């Protein structure tokens, strides 16, 4: 009997060794450890054995059963692993094929740049102030200390609107967002005419100049101006604020310089240049070899402008500056044709 059990075990294990798929394994299981397998028949015949033989054969049969079951489990695991390995291998993809995309919406690059600028200014305490795009000569020029026929008007070629006879106050397309300075000062001053409150605003918006449309000149462009007015504001504050801005905008290592300049609505006036971030100041095509990039014009608010805004220049002072988001984008992305901005070609817009 024991001999028979050994033979059963041997035969079963030999047969299992040849099994290599799930179907053969299931068949093996029925044959060798199934209900009517020789091994089970041994268990079934235990009752017929003598009292002495019964425990011995029973123990031996149990050992064989355990061994065959363990071998079965082992084989089952091996077959599963092999099957998985095979299917993984078969499922392998060409990972170099392009992925599927979705329609992505984007902000216009000018909006993106305006947001970058306004976000920095917001953290510095400058609130957004917006005003109309079609203006009067008074707001665009006269209140800003550009008298009629002043040579400074040559700096800003202007689109005029047909609006009947209006004498020296024609209607025009604003050439800068500076009319907003007057609107804002008057609005703030109205809050408390005897003691107008301080102002810190950023003025973004579309402006217009009478130009031919070429790679380098456009009839419309965005501008962001900043204006700070208070009882305690100096040219040194202007330098501090604009240098802070430059470091936030162009990196903490950004170097700047201030050149004397002229704008009718500021005095003293300056241009702020930033060391060229393309060549690091060595000179390149982007900075026209100078090592510097003209970034913004600035200055202390002219006393006439303060006065026109309802702020007494003997008591209040302020500074203002203006810059062009499209110009900043052109420098950052090396865009050499300004007409891209309003061309609305998706192949351009999708790159931002």
């Amino acid at each position: 009997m024991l001999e028979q059990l050994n033979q059963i075990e041997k035969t079963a294990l030999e047969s299992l060794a040849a099994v290599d798929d799930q179907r053969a394994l299931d068949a093996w299981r029925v044959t060798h450890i199934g209900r009517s397998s020789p091994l089970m028949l041994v268990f079934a015949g235990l009752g017929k054995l003598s009292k002495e033989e019964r425990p011995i054969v029973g123990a031996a049969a149990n050992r064989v059963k355990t061994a065959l079951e363990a071998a079965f489990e082992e084989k089952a695991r091996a077959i599963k692993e092999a099957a998985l390995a095979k299917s993984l291998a078969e499922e392998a993809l060409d990972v170099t094929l392009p992925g599927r995309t979705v329609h992505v919406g984007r902000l216009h690059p000018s909006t993106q740049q305006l947001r970058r600028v306004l976000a920095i200014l917001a953290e510095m305490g400058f609130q957004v102030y917006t005003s109309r795009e079609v203006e009067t000569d008074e707001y665009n020029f006269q209140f800003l200390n550009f008298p009629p026929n002043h040579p400074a008007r040559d700096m800003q070629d202007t689109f005029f609107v047909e609006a009947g006879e209006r004498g020296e106050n024609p209607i025009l397309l604003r050439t800068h967002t500076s009319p907003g300075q007057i609107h804002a000062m008057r609005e703030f001053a109205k809050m408390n005419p005897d003691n107008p409150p301080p102002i810190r605003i950023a003025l973004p918006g579309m402006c217009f100049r009478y130009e031919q449309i070429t790679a380098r000149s456009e009839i419309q462009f965005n501008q962001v101006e900043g204006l700070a007015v208070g009882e305690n504001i100096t040219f040194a504050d202007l330098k501090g604020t604009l240098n802070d801005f430059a470091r936030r905008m162009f990196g903490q290592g950004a170097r700047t310089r201030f050149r004397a300049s002229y704008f009718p609505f500021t005095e003293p006036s300056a241009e702020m240049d930033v060391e060229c971030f393309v060549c690091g100041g060595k000179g390149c095509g982007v900075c026209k070899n100078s090592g510097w990039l003209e970034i913004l014009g600035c200055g202390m608010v002219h006393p006439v402008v303060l006065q026109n805004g309802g702020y007494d220049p003997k008591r209040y002072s302020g500074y203002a500056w203006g810059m062009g988001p499209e110009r900043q984008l052109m420098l950052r992305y090396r865009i050499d044709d300004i007409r891209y901005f309003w061309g609305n070609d998706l192949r351009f817009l999708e790159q931002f």
Partner: protein
Amino acid sequence: MKLPISWLKEYIDLDGLSVEEIARKLTLAGLEVDEIKYAGLPMPAKREGQRHEFKTSGLAWDRDKIVVAEIRQVNPHPNADRLTLLDLFDGEQDQVVLTGAPNIFHLKGAGKLPKPIKVAYAKEGATIYDGHADGLALTTLKRAKIRGVDSYSMACSEKELGISEDHEGIIILDDDAPVGMPLVDYMGDAVLDISILPNMARNANVLGVARELAALTGRELKKPVIEYRTTGESVEHLVSIEITEPELNPRFVLGLIRNVEIKPSPYQIQRRLRLAGIRPINNIVDATNYAMLDQGEPLHAFDYDVLKARAGGKNVKIITRPAVDGEKLTTLDGVERTLTSTNVLVCDEKGPLSMAGVMGGAESEVTEKTRNVLLEGAAWNFINIRKTANQHNLPSEASFRFSRGVHPSLAETGVRRGLQLMAAWSGGAIAPGLVDSYPLPPNESKVTVTAKDVKRLLGIDLTLEQIASLLTPLEFKCEITDTRLLVTSPSHRLDMGEGVVGLADVLEEVARSYGYDKLPETHMADALPPQIGNPIHEWEEHVRDLLVNLGLQEIVSYRLTSPERESRVTTFDDYVTLANPIAPERRVMRRSLAASVLEAAEKNARADSIALFEIGPVFEPRPGDLPREPRKLALLMTGLRETLAWDVKDSPTFDFYDMKGRIQLLLSGLHYTDITYASAASIPHLHPGKAAEVRIGDVRVGVFGELHPLVKDRYELGEAPVLLAEFDLDALRRIPPVYGIRPVPEVPPVLEDIAVIVDETTPASKVDALIRQTGGKVLAHVRLFDVYRGEQIGAGKKSLAYSLTYQSDRTMTDAEAAAIRKKIIKRLEQELGAKLRS
């Protein structure tokens, strides 16, 4: 303005400062140098990998190889008629040089010259420009045989040395040029091209720039001494002046010089004028130009004998007055000009002589025959000159200066300087005195400055003495009294104001002189302003974000367009119209954003899929007044709904419901409720059956739909339908959002489907509304998941299948759900004639 450094050096010692350092200092002080053109002086060495700090051009002259030489003999060339051989001495040895220069040719065969001719001599190995090349090409002189004669060096033209374009003849230097001297030491130069800001017109002259440099470097300004001998009868007895309108002509000065010999100016003067961009004419005209560049006062020279003849031999009387409309004058460019009352004329008793401050007249101009010269220096109203120069399109060196303002004090200085130069260059004799009519001297600007003002506006602590020391080099007169500094402007400045304006003017000069780079950087210590924010801007930015999240690309279009462009989609009666458009297709401000997005779609017609939006103003004109600028939003979608890929070959195109879905998401993102969509068949540019208006409560906020096929035909667009939406952002923004959330239930919902057949004409929204109304609170969601039309249900019918979600705060039984369903079906049957589809 082009400024030769050699001229500048007459008025300030610039030793030890490189040309680039000078340019940098001027640039930082507001005299921006655009370009440096070298004409002899050594150019700065380029460091490895670096370029010049300024735009740089020109030629440096080798000290050893380009020198002053003298021609001693002029001999004919043995084998060439058109060439001459020059025997010249270069200070060390004799040389033979070939030349075909026309200005030497007349001496051919003259042999030994009685007086040697001084020339600019380039030896073998010198690098110069090729005189025969087009443009500027460098060449190095090498030994060669020309018609059998050895040639290895040359007497140079201005072009060859980079002074001007002139290659008509060789340079003939002034007689006092020292033979053998390196040419760079004798006349090496560099020219600064400076842009003059509108408030810097006072510096559009050599003296002005020298004065700025004196302030910037602390060096002394050496003004030219204007002294001369006079002879004969005083001009005051011969000429008189009548100014009719002092506002237009505050001062008029005349001087007289007799017995001038008209001839070319000294070479050094011609060279400087050419470098400064002015063509030399003759010694008298050159003297007027030279004095203008030197002092800043444009001058005009009259042939005195012509004036005398016009006066019939009597005393000349000069009259200045506005022109009479239609009056005519032939200017010295030979053009007969018709004048208007804006133009001011310089006349004599017979009539107009010249256009004041802009251009002289032909009849009285200086010619080869002129012997006696009456020299005018005047002050004119800058606005008037500006208008006149623009009106006649006559930009000139004179009108450039006068239209920016020239101080009347310069009229006298300028005339005196001009007479001095004319005497020196023409041998003429200056008549004593000047005729000077000065009816309207400008106000002298006096400004009181305190140390506190400087601290308050510039943020620096300076003593009054320090402030004064910054201003005096610019020729401000400074008087200190206790705590105040009284600053009087110099007599060449018109740009200094009074009171608070004057204070700002003075502080600008203090800051420039101090150096902007030296001013400290501080953080604002001022009180914070009231926080008013900008709700409109913030809200629009939110709208932009929502639309971008929905997959739409933002565009920004030109505000300027034409009625024809817009009329392709919609027409308007009136526009904000430009008086001076750049082109007819950009002559009005837009009224329609739909036109903007359609043009953008047309531009991108080849793209598979277009989904874009624009936010911005349109411009509604109001007669004689500023236009309204309402804010609008337009959306456009056309093309494929899905993006294509290598295994996605095709996609359905966007239709009405793609647009509607975006709009629904936008409006829910803005937290609006009570939104209704109604068919809008009468919007001319939209498909009558595929258009809807959007209302929130009672307010119509927008319309959308498929572009009308006839409108679509007016654009070059693809096959796919074009969906267009337009919203009135001002109306939309005014609607109060409703904030709140539905609680997220923990009890599982009961789901059920229901399909009903209704007439084709029954709008889905009615079915939807009735289901919701009947379902009541527990019916949490109603979603239309299928619309079917076909034989099974018969013509003129449609089947609408809804998925209903019941949600209660306790678990609902199937029986409860069934009861509600029964109620819904019953109402649909009764009120809409619907049939349950099984």
